[in-house]
């Protein structure tokens, strides 16, 4: 990533290439912003979280930090194909918290020219597209650009009880 001391011109952001981390889920190619990615891990032991969103495969221990792993097959609704034996963890940060995306295989870190990113309406595929913010026709096929915040907010499950006051309080205590 280039280092710039002066603010870029207004059109710079639009035209700058987006450095992205690309990966495979159920044979399809997806990408997330590489700047959010902390590290990539092999398959890890995980503790399931009962009653959580089905896409939350479990919690993993990343050097003492508790990181929820989001199974991208479930998150994207791509459960028709058999899962790989040992999925890869892409650990990234969203809203100050760490998450891991469980993907079939990491492909690459690549620059995607912003100008080549199209609206997702152009494609029609049979999976949930709420987290897809754009598509890009790459040399090896279509790449779906994912919005990390949308991925995370999509796995929110609230039991809708009235203990909100306590919860927010516990959150505060636990930093």
């Amino acid at each position, binding site marked *: 990533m280039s280092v710039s001391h002066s603010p870029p011109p207004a059109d710079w952001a639009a035209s700058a290439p987006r450095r992205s981390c690309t990966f495979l889920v159920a044979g399809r190619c997806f990408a997330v912003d590489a700047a959010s990615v902390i590290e990539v891990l092999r398959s890890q*032991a*995980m*503790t*399931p*979280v*009962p*009653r*959580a*969103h089905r896409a*939350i495969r*479990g*919690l*993993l*221990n990343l*050097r*003492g*930090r*508790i*990181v*929820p792993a989001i199974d991208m097959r479930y998150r994207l609704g791509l459960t028709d194909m058999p899962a790989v034996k040992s999925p890869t963890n892409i650990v990234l940060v969203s*809203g100050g*918290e*760490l*998450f891991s995306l469980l993907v079939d295989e990491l492909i690459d870190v690549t620059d995607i020219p912003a100008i080549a990113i199209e609206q997702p309406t152009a494609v029609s595929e049979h999976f949930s597209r709420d987290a897809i913010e754009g598509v890009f026709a790459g040399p090896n096929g279509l790449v779906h650009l994912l919005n990390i915040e949308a991925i*995370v*907010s999509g*796995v*929110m*499950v*609230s*039991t809708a*009880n*009235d*203990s909100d*006051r*306590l*919860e927010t*309080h*516990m*959150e*505060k*205590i*636990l*930093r």
Partner: protein
Amino acid sequence: MGENQEFVREFLVEAAENLDQLDRDLVALEENPRDPKRLASIFRTVHTIKGTSGFFGFSKLGAITHSGEHLLGQLRDGTIELNDRVTGALLTLVDAVRTILDAIEQTGSEGDADFRDLSQTLVRVAQDAAAHRPLQRSTSDIVVTRLPLAQLPTEPALKQEPEPVADSTTPFATPPTTSEPLPPAPAPQPSLTPKLPAVQPTIPVSKAAAEPSIRVDVSLLGSIVDLVGELVLARNQLQATVGADTPELLKVVQRIHSVTGALQNAAMKTRMQPIDHVFSKFPRIVRNLAVTCGKEVHLQIDGADTELDRSLIETIRDPLAHLLRNAVDHGIETPAARLAKGKPAAGRLSLRAFHESGQVTVEIKDDGGGIPVEAVRKKAVARGLVTAEEALALPDDRVLQFIFEPGFSTAAQVTDVSGRGVGMDVVKTNIESIGGTVDLASQADVGTTVRVRIPLTLAIIPALIVSSQQQRFAIPQAYVRELIALRSDRLQLAHSQPEAAAAQLNHVEGLEGAPMLRVRGRLLPLVFLDTTLDPTFQRATLSSGTVIILRIDDYEFGLVVDTVGFNADIVVKPIAAVLVSLGLYAGATVMGDGAVVLILDPRGIAQMAKIPLRPHDSQSDQGLVPVVSQPRYLLCETISGRRVAVPLEEVARLETFPRADLEQAAGRTVIHRAGRLMALADADDLLGTHHAQQQITNDSLMPMSGVERSDRQARASTEPHGVTAVILSTASGESDIGLQVQRILEVVEPQTPLNCSLRAVGVLGTIAIAGRATEVLDVRTALVSRAPDHTPQVSL
């Protein structure tokens, strides 16, 4: 400029701390107006702010602190003496400084507020005080009488004193009596303070110089604690891996073990802060409140150096402030009322913090009028919490608990101070959310004592590790009341004897549809952890398991788990917000093997299971309790293998000690626990040998021809878990006497009455338990009459 801003920020942080110190010093000075050290400290602080503001060109700040310094200088030199006007003026100065500092922090400049009047006031107070000096009352008074400032007609400016924790941006009122406004005070002139060296733009000499310390980012400390936790895990794994065949390596590992342990301790200590961080605000708050309410209050603070986790310190600030406010506003009476009752005019308010059995206790005690129990009773009825008949039957201490109900206030009118904002229910909720408790005792005209107990830290909590469906979970011990083995016969009791508890069971099940468990005559709702966490789970049979009685607020319920593992101190780690929103988990922890274990939130579990919560001792609960209550006994096996029953009301607790912890003292076996010595008596010694013959016929468990010490020792030493003791209770709680037994068999509720004709020394009588005659130990007389080795015994 950026560098300068850095300096300004540092100045602001430091000044904020200095202001807190000023607040404290000023109020303390009122108690002891001639304390030269306090005066010097105050003078130094004001002087420092003045000097630094001159350096940065903050002229308003310089001007008012200059005037304040002048006044303080006269105080220090003894030219004038401290009175309410002086203190009031100085406190107003502190507020003004705070206002300016806030403005600097937010806008970078001093803001538009005009403080010339304040400068003038300060100067005038100095002059007036000097003029009236002979009229000042004796400064030897320890209790300072605080007249409401509003009664001081010459100082209208002081009426405008801002709210206690002043982030006030209110401009100070203009004193109408002044003839002409003073010109803006000049920038600080070192020549006016001849006793001190010229103002230097250097880091001031303060308390910090004496106690070397550095500022560290809190998040950095957090990450250090996290990393140390990791290190501990790695160490554990290392220890498990290293075999005995490599002694050299083993030595190194042991060193790593001890160093890691020490490091963990040190790292945890970095999170600790003295409770003074909260307490330091209180003298000022109480002073202002007392003035507002027209009361005289003497606040005594003890144990401000008591340390606890910084995250907890933030949490207890508001609840404690609220309790203090209540004490001043509702508790302590007006001076006139107090004098009429024969009390001193000044009320005493004591704030005390101390460590007590792994917790921090904060006690707020006033000698005021107490909580009007009858008013609470009436209000509880009026609010429909209880019926009028129920209310009359409730004991006073139970009635007092109603003030923890949401929106409950007996205050006749809403005052500026109390009667709105956070109530006692929020105090309780806040304290309980961090695993603490709130106790309240009140006596008419004697006063009210509120005890807040809080854990030392939230980062590490004791927890019970349980498992359900092959998955481990942690339950914070703060909620756990009791563990009960779920046996098929107990369950049958609930299911196969519908006629016995028909009305109650049908009522409950019909109403709420929840399974219940009968525990000592009480019906508790049962929650099955497996089906709660996985609604699709189908249990084949319910044959085994453990019921964990959990208590939330005043409610109890049983949580059924597959197995109970062990107790552990766990490091609480936050979990993602998307998981917190489930409401089921309070966090997670990492076990010794590196695995992540979820910490259950019992409140969320209860809500998820939609169980009907029952107050553990309320009237409504008693409706479910069968009237007939048989005495119950704890059935134990002594070391010589005899079966004895101990009346359950005599038992406080059961405990197991490591054998190595036993000591001999004064011919008795004693054990050191929780800072005191407890005597252990052997149950066999109490019964005496003359029962041995009788025992043989009765006891098929362990036929023995006599009681041989060596046999007993051998038998006792085979017990792997150490010494099992029944801790006896006294009327006031737990005694210092433990009864040593081989093992605990069960709690029984015999159908036949106690036969008192079959009695002897140490034996209350005999009772049929499961078809066998069993001696009932007379604990009291046994302990008094029989000492080990039959030495003459003084009463216990």
